[in-house]
């Protein structure tokens, strides 16, 4: 389970994420949606402990990612936007390295490796050099490294980007089978992806949560696209009214 509580992240004067809160339940897939630059990647980097939030906390399976960082990080499998491959390592050596760092015991290493290779369809690619793989295979290796230690929480940043339609279909299927009793958070801006595999959707716009809703609660007849456009335009509208109010206040103060 992931609990994001009042997360704010500022880079200097620029506030990327403002007061974001949501919850991802165990055994469910949460789709994290938003236009480009809305703060998706920033939020995911905070959840995975890559960087701390300016304020607010994240609980991963009840562990605070900031104060109990090592324990919390052990529970997470993370696929960043760019698969973090060491370009001159072979796939198998790379995955072994990742597994060891993530604390897979030596006795279980071979099984974990075989399982990850098989699940991600990489068995034939095990002795290829990471840097020479196509985009699609890189993405699969990225996914394999995220789940090799069998983590209860998976955080995937745009897992299907750059894949061909057949691969997209496979990866989606894979994520769905993976969910089981895990918590999966995946970011994307492909809407059908969310309606196909997610149980819950969080829409973020301009660094704020615009909508948090179970997919089953979205009324029949409305498409996710409508919901999405409405959510981000409402957000924009609110921001505009905020500004207008501020301007009015300033004006009132002057007169």
């Amino acid at each position, binding site marked *: 389970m992931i609990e994001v509580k009042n997360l704010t992240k500022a880079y200097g004067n620029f506030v990327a994420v403002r007061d974001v809160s949501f919850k991802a339940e165990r055994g469910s897939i949460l789709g994290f949606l938003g236009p480009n630059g809305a703060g998706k990647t920033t939020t995911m980097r905070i959840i*995975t402990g890559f960087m701390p939030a300016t304020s607010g906390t994240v609980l991963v399976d009840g562990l605070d990612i900031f104060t109990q960082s090592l324990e919390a990080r052990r529970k997470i499998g993370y696929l960043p936007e760019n698969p973090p491959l060491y370009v001159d390592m072979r796939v198998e*050596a790379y995955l072994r390295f990742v597994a060891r760092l993530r604390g897979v015991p030596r006795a279980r290493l071979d099984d974990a490796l075989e399982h990850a290779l098989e699940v991600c369809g990489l068995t034939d690619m095990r002795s290829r050099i990471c840097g020479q793989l196509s985009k699609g295979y890189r993405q699969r290796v990225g996914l394999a490294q995220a789940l090799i230690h069998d983590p209860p929480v998976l955080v995937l940043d745009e897992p299907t980007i750059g894949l061909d339609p057949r691969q997209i279909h496979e990866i989606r299927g894979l994520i769905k089978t993976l969910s089981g009793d895990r918590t999966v958070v995946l970011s994307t801006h492909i809407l059908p992806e969310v309606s196909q595999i997610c149980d819950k959707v969080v829409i973020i716009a301009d660094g704020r949560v615009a909508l948090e809703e179970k997919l089953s609660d979205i009324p029949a007849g409305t498409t996710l696209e409508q919901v999405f456009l409405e959510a981000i335009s409402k957000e924009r509208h609110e921001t505009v009214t905020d500004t207008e109010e501020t301007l009015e206040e300033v004006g009132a103060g002057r007169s």
Partner: protein
Amino acid sequence: MKNALTIAGKELAAYFVQPVAYVVLTVFLLLGGFFFFELLSYFQIVLQMYAAMQNPQVLQHMNLNQRVIEPLLHNLSIVLVILVPAITMRTFAEEKRTGTYEFLLTAPVRTGEIVAGKFIAAAIFILIMVGLAAIFPIILVVFGNPEIGVMVSGYIGLLLLALSFVAVGLFTSSITQNQIIAAISCFGALLILYVISWPAQTGSSGWASDLLHYLSITDHFSQMVTGIIDTRDLVYFLSLILVALFLTQRSVESARWR
């Protein structure tokens, strides 16, 4: 510690998968061989000259250690000033550029373990390098009669010097994602450490001069090359390594906060 060794193993393999290691080793040994040959033939000419002049007093003072090994080690230390930045520049900078940094910092590993792992790998590489350069004194032992203790002390000095350079190199690599910047700032820092006592030689003596002499890596290295293993020099090298590694750890940690 286990994590540090895992990282060290992977880093060490990376050195030898990329051509960098072979190029660095070749350049180091080629230049070393060149210096060794030059110094030895010069030594021989001087010997013959004094022998012809029938000057047994000077002949007795002629010494393989002073005439060949000492200058050789000093020359190799300058070669290291140039080569070590090339070895260490990729350590952190490359990870930042390719995005593997994001994996490393989200893995359940302490930053200290990451720094230690990378240092251990570079240290083993340096050990191989200095070890291969031990061929020169071995040749002398086989064909001549040098003082072995002095040579061992000199090579320990070279090793400590190289390890200090590596620690500085890790730090400069950790502050940037550009390998060229990492290499050049490392080169600059090492050169300053190398020449920092020069003003003290021209100026008057005093606390400032003492300080510059203390900071100078050359002064401590020269001591060891002449066969003196003084704890002050050992403390200097070890503290330089530890300070540089500590700064590296802080710099990696601070990257999270930006």
